[in-house]
Structures are given as C-alpha cells and as structure tokens.
C-alpha cells in the first residue's frame, strides 16, 4: 500500500507492461485495439499519479496533454528524463510525442463516442449514426496500423521513461 499517487503509478506501470506484452503479438491474433487500450489506461493513470502528487484541489488532469506545462515543458524535466536534446529540440519532439499520445487518448469512449458514432477502443460504433452499420473495435483495421504500435516507439518509450523517472520529475 502507498499513497494515492504511488498506487496510480503502480497501476500505470502494470498496464504499460500489459501493453508491451499484447503489442508483441501478431495483429491477426490480438487486435490492435487491445494493446492500445492498455496504453491509454497507462497514460491516464500516470497523469492521475501526477495529479495526486501535486493536487491542490484545482488541477483538472485526465490526459497527458492536460499535464501542466511546469511539469513536462520544463528544463528540469528534460534533465530528469536524461535525453540529450537541446531545449528547442526537446519542445519540438514533445509536441510530436503529445500529438501521438493525444491520438490514443482521443480513442477513449467518453471522448470519442458521445453519439455512438466514432471509433474508440472499447465499444462498437455505428457510422454514419443510425445507419445500422456497426463496427467493433477489434474489427477496425485502422487500429492494427496505428503508429503507436510500431513507428512511434519514441512516444511509447517516452511514456515508460516518465514512469521510471517519476520521482525526479519537477
């Protein structure tokens, strides 16, 4: 047992490990939505660990993109993570990484699917709405091709680094 923040971090790490284990399986055995779902949960839990570490009752933090600039866009963060980027290059890479991770976060049902009409990682959707033409996430081929399951390993390794260096983050 630990603090609320520590336990959210433990859950984030555990979910990230499941992401890793599912990601390595062929996409025709395990659909892309499943590892992506665990990555999405790991990101959310990491953000909550950060929120509860610093919570003064005012932070509204559900996603990486909402992470306060004083944490990630901070030279001390760059130093804590150990990347050798110059500050300007770090900011540019951070923008890219956030865009990739935001793409995953936007596939949360509450964000993506207010009208049952948008792809998300958990529930079938009908597109166009009321068309009767439904698709399950596990049958949505675009998830199998998502960059986060391959080409964007910079973003996923960044998430893992954030969790590893959590205690050193500003």
């Amino acid at each position, binding site marked *: 047992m630990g603090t609320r923040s520590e336990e959210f971090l433990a859950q984030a790490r555990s979910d990230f490990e499941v992401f*890793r284990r599912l*990601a*390595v*399986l*062929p*996409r*025709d*055995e*395990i659909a*892309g939505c499943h590892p992506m779902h665990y990555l999405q949960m790991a990101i959310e839990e990491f953000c909550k660990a950060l929120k509860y570490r610093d919570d003064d009752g005012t932070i509204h933090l559900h996603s990486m993109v909402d992470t306060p600039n004083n944490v990630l866009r901070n030279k001390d963060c760059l130093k804590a*993570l*150990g*990347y*050798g*980027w110059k500050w300007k*290059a770090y900011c540019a*890479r951070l923008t*890219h990484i956030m865009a990739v991770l935001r793409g995953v976060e936007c596939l949360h049902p509450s964000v993506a699917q207010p009208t049952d009409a948008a792809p998300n990682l958990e529930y079938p959707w009908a597109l166009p709405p009321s068309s009767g033409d439904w698709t399950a996430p596990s049958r949505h*081929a675009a998830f*199998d*091709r998502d*960059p986060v*399951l*391959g*080409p*964007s*390993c*910079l973003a*996923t*390794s960044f998430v893992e*680094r954030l969790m590893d260096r959590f205690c050193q983050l500003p």
Partner: protein
Amino acid sequence: MPNYKRTVRKLARWHSTEHAAKDLVIYSYDDPEEKVIRLLEVSRVFPGEQNEDVWSMDFGASPEVPFQSRVALASRKQWRAISRGDLTLPKGWEGAAPREVYHGGNTQ
C-alpha cells in the same frame, strides 16, 4: 511474400522521420530466418548511461509491417559499450552483426 530487407528499410525510414536527430544511426540486426526485424537506433539525444541496459520495444506483425519487429534506442555511450562488448544487447539479439541501414539522413 513480403520482402524482409525492403520492410527493414521502410521501418528505418519511418523511425528516422520521427526522430529527426541529425546524428541518428540505425542498425539492423538481421534475422537469418527473416522472421524478426531488429533495429538498434543510436543517437546522442537518447538517454542511457554506458552501464544501463538497452531494452527493446517489441511489436507483432501488422498489415504495415508484416514481420515481428523489435526496436531499441541507445545513447552513444551505450553504443560504444556495446561495441566494446561491455554491454549486452536485448535478449535474442545475440549472434547477429549490425548492418547500418540509416545514417544521418540517408537510408542505406
């Protein structure tokens, strides 16, 4: 039948676009059986001390990359330690020689 070396080049190209570090070098540890793509990406911007293990992020075969792929990021310090034999590669990478497939803007 997907072409192994062409897919290695494709993946290296994607990753070099993403990182855009001027000093990025990507090595392929080719699998003689052409079942697994293993890329080691080296740049001074990646974190990692010379005694810090290099780990890989592994991905299953997909429509875009029809081979299992493993990608590891290493700092220059780690790369020098690997070259000296002081640091081991991720498990399963042993026995293959590195083949440079990307060097600072050029896909080989």
